[in-house]
C-alpha cells in the first residue's frame, strides 16, 4: 500500500501516561473503502489510539493525516465536520433523549439551513442566527428537519423492528444491545467518510452479535471505510480486509486476516501474558 493512496495515515503516534507509554510510535494506513480491524489484548492501547485519532486525547508525538489533511490535535467537533464518526467502547448514548433525537444529533453537522455559513465578520453572529432560525423556522429549515427525520427513519430501519417501535422512548429505557444499535445509527446519521467502531458487540449475545455483524457487513459492502476494534476474532476474520495487532502500545502485526492469525507474535501476545490493568481512555478531571 503506497502513501499516496492513503485515506487515513498515522505516523509515529505516541501517548504516554506518567511512566507508561500507552501508544508507542504507531504507524497505520487505511485506504478508502478498506475495512481494517485492530485487535490486541486488553490494555494494548487500542482505545487510546482511537481517542488520539478522534481528538479526545492529544498525542505526545506523531501525526494523523486524513484525506491529505493534517488532523493531529484537531478537536472532536472539527473531526466530525470532516466526516469522521465513532462509537464508544462502553456505549455513550444521550440517555434522556429519544431514539429519534439521538440519531438526529448524529446528523448535527449536516444541518446547513439553520447554520448559514457566513463569512468572517458575520459569522460571529452565527449563534444568534441559529437561535433566530430555530425560532422562526423558515421553510428551508422545516424542510431540512423533515428530510433528516426521514433519513433517520431509514437508518433505524436497518435494525429491523428493534428500534422502530421505540422511536420516542428515551434511550435510558432501552436494553443494552439496543443502546449500542442507537449509537451506530447515530454514527451513520453523520454520513461518515470514516467510521470508527469500538467493540460494537461487547456485551451482546450470539444472536445479537450475528445481527450486528451482518449490519456491519452491509456497511462494508456499501463502500464505507471502517476501522474496527473488536475482541470477537471470528467476526474480525470474516469482515476485515486487513488486521492490525497491537500489544503494549505497539503494532506487532499487520496483514490479511489469515496471515495475522498464524503470526507467532500474535499468538504470544494473546496467550503469553496477561496484563490487564493499563489505563485506556483518559479524561482529565474538571476541565477536559
Amino acid at each position, binding site marked *: 500500500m503506497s502513501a499516496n493512496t492513503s485515506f487515513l495515515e498515522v505516523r509515529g503516534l505516541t501517548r504516554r501516561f506518567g511512566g507508561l507509554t500507552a501508544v508507542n510510535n504507531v504507524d497505520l494506513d487505511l485506504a478508502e473503502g478498506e475495512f481494517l480491524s485492530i485487535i490486541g489484548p486488553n490494555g494494548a492501547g487500542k482505545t487510546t489510539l482511537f481517542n488520539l485519532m478522534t481528538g479526545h486525547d492529544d498525542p505526545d508525538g506523531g501525526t494523523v493525516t486524513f484525506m491529505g489533511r493534517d488532523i493531529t490535535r484537531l478537536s472532536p467537533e472539527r473531526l466530525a465536520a470532516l466526516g469522521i464518526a465513532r462509537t464508544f467502547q462502553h456505549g455513550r448514548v444521550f440517555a434522556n433523549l429519544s431514539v429519534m433525537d439521538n440519531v*438526529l444529533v448524529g446528523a448535527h*453537522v449536516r444541518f446547513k439551513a439553520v447554520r448559514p455559513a457566513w463569512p468572517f465578520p458575520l459569522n460571529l453572529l452565527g*449563534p444568534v442566527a441559529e437561535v433566530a432560525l430555530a425560532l422562526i*423556522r423558515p421553510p428551508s429549515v422545516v424542510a431540512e428537519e423533515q428530510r433528516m427525520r426521514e433519513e433517520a427513519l431509514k437508518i433505524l430501519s436497518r435494525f429491523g423492528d428493534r428500534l422502530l417501535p421505540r422511536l420516542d422512548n428515551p434511550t435510558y429505557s432501552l436494553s443494552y444491545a439496543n443502546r449500542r444499535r442507537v449509537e451506530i445509527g447515530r454514527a451513520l446519521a453523520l454520513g461518515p467518510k470514516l467510521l470508527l467502531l469500538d467493540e460494537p458487540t461487547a456485551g451482546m449475545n450470539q444472536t445479537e452479535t450475528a445481527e450486528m455483524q451482518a449490519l456491519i457487513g452491509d456497511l462494508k459492502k456499501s463502500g464505507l471505510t471502517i476501522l474496527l476494534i473488536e475482541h470477537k476474532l471470528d467476526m474480525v476474520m470474516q469482515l476485515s480486509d486487513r488486521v492490525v495487532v497491537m500489544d503494549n502500545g505497539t503494532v506487532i502485526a499487520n496483514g490479511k486476516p489469515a496471515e495475522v492469525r498464524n503470526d507467532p507474535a500474535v499468538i504470544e501476545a494473546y496467550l503469553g501474558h496477561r496484563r490487564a490493568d493499563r489505563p485506556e481512555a483518559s479524561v482529565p*478531571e474538571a*476541565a477536559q
Partner: protein
Amino acid sequence: MSSWIDYTINGIIIGNIYALLAVGLALIFGVSRLINFAHGSVYVVGAYAGFVAVTQLGTPLPLTIVIVVAVGALLGLGIERFGLRPLQGYAHIAPLLATIGLSFVLDQLVQLTFSPDPRALPSELLERRFQVGSGTIGALDILIAAVGIGSAALLYYFLRFTRLGWAIRATAQDRDAAQQMGVDVNAVNRAVFAIASALGAVSGLLVGMYYNYIDPAMSFQATLKGVVAQVVGGVGNVPGAIAGSMLLGIVESYGIALFGTSYRNLFAFILLVLVLVLRPNGLFASRRQTPPEPMTGTFIAPSKPIQISYPVLIGIAVVMALLPLVLPNPYVLQTLTNAWLYGLLGLSLTLIAGTVGLISLGHAALLAIGGYASALLSLDLGMPVGASILLAGVIAAAIGTILVFPSFRLRGHYFSIATLAIGEIVSLVILNWESVTRGPIGVAGIPPLSIFGFELDTDRSIYWFALAVLVILAALQFRLLGSHLGRTLRAMRDDDIAARSYGIGLDRYKALAFSVGSFAAGVSGGITSHLYSYINHETFNSQLSILALTIVILGGMGNVTGAILGSVLLVGLPEVFRVAAEYRVLIYGLVLLLLVRFRPQGLLGTI
C-alpha cells in the same frame, strides 16, 4: 515596608480562621463529592454550644472544646444519617440541595432558640498578647493555628495509618471499587461527617471567641469563605485547603492594602475564578488528585416528565389572564405578579441548569445586571421604559455570557462554584463602581413601568404585563426546545464527550443557551427595577440565586411549565405560611428537604 509585614501577618491570621472551615469542607468533598452548604450552620451550632457551655455552665476552655466537639460530631452524624444517606444513588444535585435545606433548618432553629441578637462569647485566653511587627498576636490566634495545623496533622496520620483512614481514602478515590472490596462506605461517610463537623463546630467556637461575637446569620459567610479557600487549594485536598486558606487570607489583606476595605471580597472571588479557570484542580493539587466528574449524564436524574398538552397550557394561561377580572384582590395579584417575575428567572435557569446542565449558583447577578441596565438607561439616558427593559435583557445576555464564558470548560460542581463567585463579583462591582451605579446609595426614582407611553399604574395592568412577558418568553422557550437546538443542548448535558464527537462545539452551544437564558433573567430584573422604583446592590442578593435553583428543581430540570409552577409555589407558599411568622423559613427548609428526598426529579419531571 513594615506595613507589608503587618498585612501579611493579618492575612495569615484570617487565613488561619478560613482553614478551620476549609479543612472540614475538603474532607467531606474528598469522600462524598459534596459541597456541604450546611457546614456554616454546623459552625454556628458549635459557636452557640460553646456559648451555652461558657455562659451557662461556666466550663473552662478545654472542657468547652470537648463539649463542642461532641455536639459537632453528633450533628454531623445526624446530617449524614437523615439528610444525605437516604439520597444515595440520586442525581448529584440532590445532596447539594439537601445541605442547603439543612442549613436553612439549622440556622433557623438556632435563631429561634437564641434570638437573632448577636451575643458575646468571652474567652479567658484573649487577654494574653505578644508583640509581633507593630501589632500583637493573641494566645487565641496561636490556639486557632494550633487547632488548624494540629487537626490537619491528626487527619494526615489518621488517613495514612489507620484502617478507617485507608477506607476513607479508598472511598475517596473510587467509591464503587472500595465498596466491592468490602469497605463499609456508610461507616466511612459517618466517620467523615463526624470528624468534619466536629472541626466545623470547634471553628465556630474559636472564631466566636476570637471576635467575642456570635450571631445566627454568620453561617452563610462562613460557608462561602470556606468553599473559596478549599477550591483555591484544590477541592477535596486537606493540606491544599490549608494552603488555599492562607493564600485567600493574604490576597484579601493585600487587596485591602492596595485598594481599600470595600475591595476585599472582590479580590477573594476574583482569585477563586482565576484558579478555577486556570488550574481547576486547585493550586496545590497534584494533577490527578481529584477523580473525574461522572463520565455520563448522571448529574440529571432520568425521569419521565409529566406531559401537559398545549391546549391545556393555553387554557391555564387564559384563566390566569382572566383572574384579575374575577378576583380583583391586589394582594393575590401582587403575589402572582411576583411569581410571574420569578417565573422568568425560572425559565432562564431551567434552560441553563436543566436543559444544558450548567448548575448556576449566581443567577441573581443576571437580574442585577438587567435591573441596573434598565434603571440607568431610562433614568440617565431617558430611554422609554419598554425599550430599556428589552435592551436590559440583551445587556444581561451579553455581559452574563462574557463573564461566564471562561468557566464553560468546567464541569459539575466546579461550574457551580465559579458562578457563585461571579455572582458575588457582579454585586461587588455594582457596589464599588460608583460613577455608574451610584454605589451603596442605590438607584432611586426609577420611572414606573410603561409601554408605548402608557403608564402601567394599576395592579391589574402590571399583572397583565408580567404575565404577558412570561407567556411570550415561555412560548419562545418551548419553540426553542422543540427545534434542533433542544436536542443539541440536551445531548450536551447528557454526554458532552459524545456530543463533541458529533460536531457539537460545547462553547458555542453553552454560550448560545446562556445568552438566551440570561435574556429572560435580564428582562425580569429590568421589570422588577421599574416596579420597585429603587434598587441597590442588595436587591438581587445571593439568596435569590438559591431560590432560583430551588424553583427549577422543584418544577423539574429543563421543564418550562415546571419552572413556572415552581415559582408560583415558592412565591406562594411563604405567603401561605405567613401565619407561621418566625417559623416560616424553618418550614421552607423542611419542605425543600422532603422534596429532595421524595421527588428529586421535580414535580413535573426532568425533560
